[in-house]
C-alpha cells in the first residue's frame, strides 16, 4: 500500500468519527440551537411536516379506524362501537339461521385482483425494459422528447382515456372492423377481463418506463464495452451488466405498477364491464350501494397490509440481492 492510499484511508476514518457520536434524534430533527448563521430555525418546518403527515397518514388512520367499527342500523356511515365483524365477513358468511360457514367469494375477488395486477406488472416491466434501454441510448435532446412522449397520457384524465379504449375495443371499433375485413369476424373484447388487463397495462406502462429509464439514463455504456472486452457475449452483457444497472428502476417500476393495479377501479368497471369483480370495485360498492362502510374500510386495510407485505418482501429480496452481489 502506498503512502497516498494510507492518507485517503485516514481521511475516511476521520469523517466517520463525528457521525458515530450523534444520536438518532439529533440526526433527524437536529438541535434548534445548532442552526448555522443564515439558516432558519428547524421549528419553521413543523407546519409543513404536520400537513404532510395529515395528508399521508390521516386518511389511512381513518380507514383503519372505520374498519374496526360497526355499521349503523340504517344507511351508510359508522357507529363508534368496536367490532371485528367486517373482517369476519371477509372469510365467513352467516346464513338465515345464523350458522357461520366459510365463504371464499371475497378471497376470490382478491385472487382475481392479484392475478390481474401480477399479469399487468409482468407485461409492463417486460415491455418497459427494452423501451427504457432504447430511450437511454439516444442523444440527450431526443431523450428529452421521448420522456415527454411517455408522459403524454398524464396530460388528460384517466377516465377520458379509458373511454377512448372503450371506443377502440367495442363491437364497431377499429379492431373489430379490421378483424371483420380479415375474415376472422368480430370478437367480444369490451367487457372482458382481457379488456380490463389491456386498460391496466396501458395505464401503468409509463410508471414502469420512467423509473427504469431514469436508472438507465445515467448508465455508462463503456461498461458494456468493458464486458465485451472481458469475453462476455450479448446475453451475458444484458443480464449481468445492463439489467443489473436497471435493477433499482425495475424494482420501483414493479412497485409503481403492482400497487395501484391491485386496487384499480376505473379499468375493471369501464373495460371489464363490472363482470369481473376486483377489490377496487368491491370497495367502491361497499361505500356506495351496499352502504357497508366498515366492510369497505376492512377491505381497504387488507389491501394496505398486502401491499406493505409485498413491499417488505421486495426490499428484503432487494437488499439480499445487493448483498449477494457485494460478497
Amino acid at each position, binding site marked *: 500500500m502506498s503512502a497516498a492510499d494510507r492518507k485517503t484511508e485516514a481521511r475516511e476514518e476521520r469523517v466517520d468519527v463525528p457521525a458515530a457520536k450523534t444520536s438518532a434524534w439529533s440526526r433527524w430533527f437536529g438541535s434548534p440551537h445548532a442552526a448555522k448563521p443564515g439558516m432558519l430555525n428547524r421549528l419553521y418546518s413543523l407546519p409543513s411536516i404536520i400537513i404532510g403527515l395529515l395528508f399521508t397518514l390521516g386518511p389511512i388512520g381513518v380507514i383503519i379506524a372505520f374498519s374496526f367499527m360497526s355499521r349503523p342500523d340504517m344507511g351508510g356511515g359508522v357507529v363508534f362501537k368496536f367490532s371485528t365483524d367486517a373482517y369476519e365477513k371477509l372469510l365467513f358468511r352467516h346464513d338465515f339461521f345464523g350458522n357461520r360457514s366459510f365463504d371464499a367469494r371475497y378471497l376470490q375477488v382478491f385472487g382475481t385482483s392479484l392475478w390481474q395486477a401480477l399479469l399487468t406488472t409482468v407485461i409492463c416491466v417486460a415491455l418497459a425494459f427494452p423501451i427504457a434501454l432504447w430511450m437511454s441510448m439516444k442523444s440527450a435532446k431526443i431523450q428529452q422528447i421521448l420522456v415527454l412522449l411517455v408522459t403524454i397520457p398524464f396530460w388528460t384524465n384517466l377516465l377520458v382515456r379509458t373511454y377512448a379504449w372503450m371506443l377502440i375495443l367495442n363491437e364497431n371499433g377499429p379492431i373489430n372492423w379490421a378483424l371483420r375485413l380479415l375474415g376472422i369476424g368480430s370478437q367480444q373484447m369490451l367487457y372482458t377481463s382481457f379488456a380490463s388487463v389491456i386498460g391496466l397495462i396501458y395505464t401503468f406502462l409509463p410508471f414502469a418506463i420512467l423509473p427504469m429509464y431514469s436508472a438507465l439514463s445515467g448508465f455508462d455504456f463503456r461498461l458494456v*464495452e468493458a464486458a465485451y*472486452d*472481458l469475453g462476455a457475449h450479448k446475453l451475458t452483457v444484458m443480464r449481468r451488466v445492463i439489467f443489473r444497472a436497471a435493477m433499482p428502476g425495475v424494482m420501483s417500476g414493479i412497485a409503481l405498477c403492482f400497487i395501484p393495479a391491485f386496487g384499480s377501479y376505473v379499468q375493471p368497471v369501464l373495460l371489464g364491464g363490472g363482470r369481473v369483480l376486483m377489490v377496487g370495485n368491491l370497495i367502491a360498492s361497499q361505500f356506495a350501494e351496499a352502504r357497508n362502510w366498515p366492510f369497505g374500510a376492512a377491505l381497504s386495510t387488507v389491501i394496505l397490509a398486502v401491499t406493505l407485505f409485498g413491499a417488505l418482501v421486495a426490499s428484503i429480496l432487494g437488499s439480499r440481492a445487493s448483498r449477494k452481489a457485494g460478497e
Partner: protein
Amino acid sequence: MSKTQPLVARDPEVESRESGLTINRAFKVFQSSEGKEVKAINDVSLAIRQGEFFILLGPSGCGKTTLLRSIAGLESLDAGEIYLGDQRIDQLPPYDRPVNTVFQSYALFPHLTVAQNVAFGLEMEKKPKAEIAKTVQEMLDLVHLGEFGGRKPHQLSGGQQQRVALARSLAKRPKVLLLDESLSALDFKLRRQMQVELKRIQRETGITFVFVTHDQEEALSMGDHIAVFSKGRPEQVGTPEEIYNEPANRFVADFIGDINFVDAVKSADGEITVEGVPFRVKQDISDLPMDAEVSAAIRPERITLTAPRESALTGTVETLMFMGADVRCEVRLTDGTKLLVRLSPPYDTAVLHEGATVSVEVEAAHMRVVER
C-alpha cells in the same frame, strides 16, 4: 503470413515479430458531425513485437485511440488486416480476441466488488471457482491491492481503481494488453509511480503492452518503441532515443520535447548554412536539391553559449531563468529568431547575463534537417 514449415532456423528477431501484433494497411473513416469524412486511421501498417512496451503517441484526434479500439474489436476497420502472430483477428468479435483493454475511464462494474470485477473475465471463460479465486488474489497482489478485494470501486481512490482495471485485464492473461490513456486521469506524482509500476508489471508478465498517450514524456520514459501519430498516420516509429534525437520530420521534432527551428539553406552536399555559418550535418540530405530552404531543428540542451567569437552564430541573451536543475535562456539571433537554450549550472556570469552578446555554439551532429 504463410503457415508453411520454415526450412531454416528463424531469426529470433523475425520470430518475435511474427508472434507479435501486425497491422497491415488499416483504414477507418468517420463521418464528422458536419458531414465531412474524417480519416481516423489512414493507411496504417505497424509491427509490434511480442513482449514489448509499444506506445501510440500523438495529439488528441490523431487516430491513436481509434486504432487501439480496432485492435480490441470495439471498432471495425474499413479496410486492412490485424494479425496476432499468424491469426487474423480483425474479423473476430471483441469477446473472442485474445486481447484486453484497460479503459481510460477504468469502466469498473460499480455493483461488483474489486474481486468480482477481477473475476468477471475468468467467469466468462467458465474457469473452476477455486482457480478463479486463486488468480484473482494473484492479480490483486501483483497490483498491490491484495487487501482490497472486498471493497466496491467507489470506495477506492483513482489510482487504486486504475490498478483494479489493470488487474482485471491482466487476469485474462491476454496476448496483448491495450491501455487507453490509462494514466491521464491521475495527478502528477501518482502518474510517475504508476509509470514505474506499469513498466515493472509489463516486464514481470511478459505481455505485449500497447499504450496510448498524448504525453510525450510518458511515452519516452516507458516505451520500448514509439509510434508518433498525426492525422491518422504514424509519422515515425522508433525507439525513444531515435524519436528524440533523430526526428523524421518537423511534426515529430516539434511534438517531442522542446526544440528550436532555425531557417537554413542546403549549401553543399551534407552541409547546411544558418545565417552564413556552415554546418556539416550527420544526416543524409542528398535527396534535397541545392539551395533547398529547410529548417535546422536543435534541442535546447544541445546548445552552448560562449563569449562572442568570429565565424559563429551570435545572439543576445533576452531572459535568463534559474530553474533549479538547469538554467533556461532565451537568446535572440541576429535575424530575429528566438532560441530556447538549456544550460546546466554553474555558468560564467561574466559571459552570461541578460543583455549579453554571446556566441551560439551547436554541434552539427545534433542538428536535424527538417522541412521548413
